[in-house]
């Protein structure tokens, strides 16, 4: 399993040809109290960098982008009842969706944990 990060503050954990996607701890801290999350429908086709999900804090709505292209295999239904999971466990139970990768080579441009940490520190 390998975890990658985007400069839009999503994480993606890849196992074989499938992956789990969420937003980073830094992202949830910036957003503040999450009151609503909308995950993509199973079967939805996502393209790298396109809108994938929506996360809303008290103050504003923000898009979650697809780190890579693929087909959604599962959405995290727990977020409907408990959107605050994104605050309390953003890089675990607060995941957004799983997808089957359509082009694994797209992972090449993403950051690893060290590179993402350096990126966040530079903000």
């Amino acid at each position, binding site marked *: 399993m390998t975890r990658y990060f985007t400069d839009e503050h999503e994480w993606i954990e890849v196992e074989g040809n499938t992956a789990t996607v969420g937003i980073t701890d830094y992202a949830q801290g910036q957003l503040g*109290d999450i009151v609503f999350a909308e995950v993509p429908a199973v079967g939805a086709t996502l393209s790298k960098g396109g809108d994938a999900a929506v996360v*809303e804090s*008290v103050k504003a709505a923000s898009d979650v982008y697809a780190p890579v292209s693929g087909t959604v295999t599962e959405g995290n239904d727990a977020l409907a009842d408990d959107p605050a999971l994104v605050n309390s466990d953003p890089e675990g139970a607060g995941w957004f969706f799983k997808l089957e990768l359509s082009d694994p080579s797209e992972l090449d441009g993403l950051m690893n944990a060290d590179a993402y940490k350096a990126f966040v520190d530079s903000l």
Partner: protein
Amino acid sequence: MSDDTEMRELPLGDWHRAKGARMVSFAGYAMPIQYKGIMAEHLWTRENAGLFDVSHMGQLILSGDKPAEALEALVPGDISALKEGRMRYSLLLGADGGVLDDLMVAATPTGLYVVVNGAVKHQDIAYLRANLPGSININHLEDRALLALQGPKAVEAITRIVPGVDQLYFMEADLFLWGEVPLWISRSGYTGEDGVEISIAADLVEALADALCAQPEVKPIGLGARDSLRLEAGLPLYGHDMDPTTDPVESNASFAVSKSRRVEGGFNGADRILKALAGGPARKLVGLSVEGKMPVREGAPIFAGEVQVGVVTSGGFAPSVGAPIAMGYVAAGHNSIGTALEAEVRGKRVPLAVAAMPFIPHRYHRRGASK
């Protein structure tokens, strides 16, 4: 609102940063959006007391020859009847009766004390200067800061350090002493809770903020919670829920058109406003309860079936309600309480119902009320 890249500093800027605030640009100033989190700050204010820095707002003194009578040409309130130490909410009207700003006016021994919104204060001052007689002086108190202390324990907390504040009732104001420092304090605010607003010399505001936050009931609260609190209280946010294209009747502010002025007229837009009062406005600002959990925000169109009948002007999650709520303009025939409507958010329809405001009851300390 304003997202000016150049942010001006308010007297408490560094104080907010030291308290862990996240600063954003608002009305051209660097201001705290939140400290610990909007939800916690909102709920703290409803239970205890929250300290808000509202020093971006414009504080003016109108003095000279009968400023109340002069101001009445531009606002629909009965300002000349205001007794010393009394305050009133009013609206600055353009020639066509559109709302240029909402404001507070208090009668003081030195003239009318007027508080206007930060984002439009400079244009307000220019408008007042152009439209009030030359015999009226307009003094912009740029060397004063403004704090709001809001919540059910606010008055108890401030009275501990500024004796006598608890003697004020809602919409009353007076001069008090904090040690030797004069404070102009009104029992008012914009959260729906009891509380006060405190005008103080800018160079002394940091010490006062520290003294207030040393009280166990008091925590600093950011703009994020200020917005969610006022939305639950059904209070319009200027520039969003009312603006120059809306008149006071449409803006759900008919109460600001005083009885005597309804008879006499004589203010900007009186024809339009008195006609709307008599016949009902073509559209009206109403509260909206939202079904489900998805927030409906400013700009979302409102539908009755296939026909668009309105637009959301403020909306978000309401921490004390525990659900999303909104305010918006809805056309006559669709805006009575309980009417079922839909908003469109990201291509999806969200059920709404026209709701009575406030969403959370006001808890003002009114004179003559039995508590």
